[in-house]
């Protein structure tokens, strides 16, 4: 396949809006190629989108669907010759997730949180999501074995457990959510700071985070730890954020990437002492990111309208349900985690929501280096991912931001710095935030760029970058980004003129990390005992079987001698 004459943005390879041809052969970007010719003259061409943090599969998603038939009714589309039926807005069915990502020009999406014991379910849903490549991050932050290894300061055993846990869950990386809080929630409480000991386990969140970060590097995992801070969603929590990031400053990355990726930073950049004097502290957070180089973040931008909050931070969801007088689902997972689901609506006239909306944009605009910031809505927590084009148009146009702010509660002007921010992003920065950076942050070498050998994932939009001015023509930007002219996945056209024309099965990434056999044996013998005594299923029925990952991409990692890290 040859994509002819497009205006190509591939910042990872130093290409910033050049007219050029892109060739795809055998599913990968190549020097030259034959076959189909796609006329992209003058159109915006970029690598397929990569979502590094989205909730797209697993028990909490399905709980959201089951408790929200009202949501499932939205966005209903009947089956077509190619597509199975779609339903839902904040909690779409599996098919809709694949089709909608593809329509936006996205070809990869990662599920951000799965307990090991429920990973089989997550993979069952992932397999039902068509088109996109995917993976799932594995939860470790309130896990008994993790906490016991940390308490005993047994890093060898912890490394063995993390490697085993990733394999058991067919997981891609280490996710930590409100570390220790999930365990405390087992008896209805929470941890209040990174130094607040976890009941019954004699460890602190700070110790858990640091130990997992060290082990993550020791195992040379492609992705860093992926962290949802303690105290998330609380006024004044930006201090917890900075305090936590400081804990990790001296850890050396084993690959060319961050040592910690912060999930949905928006929810942890809050000032004030309560909801009354709630204010944005995005500038303090952005300042911290501008001065340090060990952390990256995704936005967790909120979108006005309905959302479904869902997180392994169960105490947070309990609080949300109480504040919002909402229905509430909770699910505690033996020995590992807890989680909750609460429907939500973000409202323009609500002071807190107006400020939250501003915080996401401020974080993106005040952080100088776009490689440190990934665009997400923490789907469906801040709002559904189908709204990414809205965010892109906001980041590219001050005028659009001003127009929006007029419709919001006025506190958005006094409690955030957004009105004073002049920056307008260009296409290169947008491509970095939606493609190049998420791929690099996740350690996906063949994604997010169009270099020779990269995956043949390309999106082409009905936008003429040489003719429009995104700062003025923001409506054109939004409309164009919402319906890709072409989405090409692995060299196959899957979207043409905004319609799905093919729905191939994507692949699933997981990480197989090697550890010394003696450590693994020692770990397994202690784990066996845990299964006998505390788990309610047998160890031999615990691991995700190969049948659930029919199209795997196994990424090898582990303690073999390191290649020189630049």
């Amino acid at each position, binding site marked *: 396949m040859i994509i002819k004459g497009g205006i190509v943005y591939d910042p990872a390879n130093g290409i910033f809006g050049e007219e050029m041809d892109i060739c795809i052969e055998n599913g990968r970007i190549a020097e030259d190629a034959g076959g189909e010719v796609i006329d992209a003259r003058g159109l915006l061409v970029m690598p397929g989108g990569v979502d590094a943090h989205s909730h797209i599969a697993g028990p909490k998603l399905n709980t959201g669907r089951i408790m929200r038939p009202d*949501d499932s009714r939205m966005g209903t589309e009947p089956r077509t010759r190619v597509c199975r039926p779609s339903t839902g807005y904040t909690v779409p069915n599996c098919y809709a997730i694949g089709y909608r990502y593809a329509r936006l020009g996205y070809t990869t999406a990662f599920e951000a949180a799965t307990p090991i014991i429920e990973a089989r379910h997550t993979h069952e849903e992932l397999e039902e999501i068509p088109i996109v490549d995917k993976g799932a991050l594995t939860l470790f932050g309130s896990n008994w074995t993790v906490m016991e290894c940390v308490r005993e300061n047994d890093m060898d055993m912890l490394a063995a457990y993390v490697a085993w846990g990733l394999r058991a869950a067919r997981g891609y990386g280490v996710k930590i959510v409100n570390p220790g809080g999930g365990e405390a929630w087992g008896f209805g409480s929470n941890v209040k700071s990174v130094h607040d000991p976890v009941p019954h386990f004699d460890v602190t969140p700070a110790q858990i985070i640091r130990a997992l970060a060290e082990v993550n590097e020791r195992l040379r995992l492609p992705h860093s730890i992926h962290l949802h801070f303690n105290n998330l969603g609380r006024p004044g929590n930006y201090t917890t954020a900075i305090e936590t990031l400081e804990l990790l400053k001296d850890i050396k990355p084993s690959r060319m990437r961050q040592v910690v990726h912060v999930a949905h930073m928006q929810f942890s950049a809050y000032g004030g002492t309560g909801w009354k004097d709630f204010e944005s502290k995005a500038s303090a957070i952005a300042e911290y990111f501008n001065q340090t180089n060990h952390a990256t973040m995704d936005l967790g931008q909120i979108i006005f309208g309905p959302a479904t909050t869902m997180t392994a931070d169960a105490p947070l969801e309990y609080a949300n349900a109480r504040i919002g007088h909402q229905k509430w689902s909770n699910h505690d997972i033996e020995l590992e985690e807890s989680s909750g689901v609460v429907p939500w609506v973000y409202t323009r006239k609500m002071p807190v929501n107006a400020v939250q909306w501003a915080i996401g944009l401020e974080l993106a605009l005040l952080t100088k280096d776009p490689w440190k910031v990934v665009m997400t809505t923490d789907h469906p927590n801040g709002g559904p991912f189908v709204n990414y084009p809205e965010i892109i148009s906001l980041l590219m146009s001050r005028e659009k931001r001003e127009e929006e702010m007029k419709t919001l509660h006025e506190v958005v002007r006094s409690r955030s710095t957004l009105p004073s921010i002049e920056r307008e992003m260009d296409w290169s920065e947008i491509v970095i935030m939606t493609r190049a950076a998420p791929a690099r942050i996740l350690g996906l070498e063949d994604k997010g760029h169009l270099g020779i050998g990269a995956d043949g994932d390309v999106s082409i939009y009905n936008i003429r970058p040489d003719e429009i001015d995104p700062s003025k023509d923001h409506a054109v930007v939004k409309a164009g980004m919402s319906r890709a002219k072409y989405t090409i996945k692995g060299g196959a056209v899957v979207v043409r003129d905004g319609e799905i024309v093919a729905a191939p099965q994507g692949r699933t990434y997981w990480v197989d990390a090697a550890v010394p056999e003696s450590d693994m044996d020692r770990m397994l013998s202690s784990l066996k005992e845990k299964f006998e005594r505390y788990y309610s299923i047998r160890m031999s029925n615990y691991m995700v079987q190969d049948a659930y990952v029919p199209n795997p991409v196994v990424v090898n990692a582990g303690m073999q001698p390191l290649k020189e890290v630049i």
Partner: protein
Amino acid sequence: MRLQIEDVLCTFCGCLCDDIKVEVDEGRIEKVRGACRLGSSKIMGHNRIKSPMIRVNGELKEISYEEAYRRAAEILINARHPLLYGWASTTCEALKKGILLAEEIGGVVDTTATVCHGPSIIGIEEKGAVGSTLGQIKNRADLIVFWGCNPSEAHPRHTLRYSSNACGRFTPDGRKGRKVLVVDVRETRTARNADRFLRIQPGTDYEIISALRMIIGGKADSLPEDVAGVSKKELIEIAEMMKSAKFGAIFFGLGLTHSRGRYKNVDNALSLVSELNSHTKFVIMAMRGHYNVTGAGQVLAWSSGYPMAVDYARGAPYYNPGETSCCDLLSRRDVDAALIIASDPASNLPRGCVEALAEMPVIQIDPFENPTTLFADVVIPSAIAGIEVEGTAYRMDGLSLRLRKLVDVEYPGDVEILQAILDNVRRLRDDN
């Protein structure tokens, strides 16, 4: 050669016990260890349907699988609005195929949940569900409440493996370290082993739960001295028992979902648990009957957005229980053919619905003969999931597990059968 297979899953009830030992000799199951009586008898097997059959002049007559598939496809294609019902005792993989079939023929997929825990699901739509995995309860709960359920008889290993009698990290003394409260209309075996039995009058669950909610919400003063035959004093003691637990768990059964009030009872119980969480930690769980009725709801939810009673007649999923659920469709004669799989509606549905079924062409897919076979027009015997074929099932707490295959048989599995019917549907359509 005698083969000992460990950690086998029992595909009978919603406990989905996964620690069964099975001895297999020359392809036959010889011995089952670790399962309860219900489970063992299922695993040992009984009255299999031997061959596919179709009804000719009122009599079932043996035919080939190929012919049975074609007949089934013809029935489905000729129907205006077919019903695909059952799914509680087969694998998730089978339901996935069933949904695809329903999408293509514009049918309705409904599960046996609509006649058991359907009201629970509607309760969850109203209130959400505050739950956990069973291991969490085993490790932490110091108060277990069985409300309108009788695990001693219906889920025999529940108490020992997961609930009142299980030992765990924070419950090392098992039954001795915890309190058990049973709420029921009669004194069941479960009730006899409880620390406290609250016997209530039939149909008064809603009032009792409301009274407990009032007491827990600090409004005991407004209560009369007697609520639905239970004294205020007793209710206050029970509320106190709940509030003072460190971790409480309510298991509820059809006694709650099918007594007067139905989903409102569940809605009220879910609210009670939600409110108890401002005082202590509390969770609630439905005692699911068939081993994979939970999984059927899960698969339907991720495929269609809805957990049961999904109508594909419009090309897109449409859900309105009370309109699109099996009993409503049948009693309104709004479906004109049925594919029944892994269930026995003839024994479980109201009489009028069974009569409606008897009047329409019925395809039955099942390993075993049951009363539904008596009026089925096409009978397709299948391999038993978890014994003869692999697949996925979800335990009552939502944990998914992989069923093992223990022996080889000639019978095709449900997935294979449904795929063959789908292939025939596509072929017959192309011919026309």
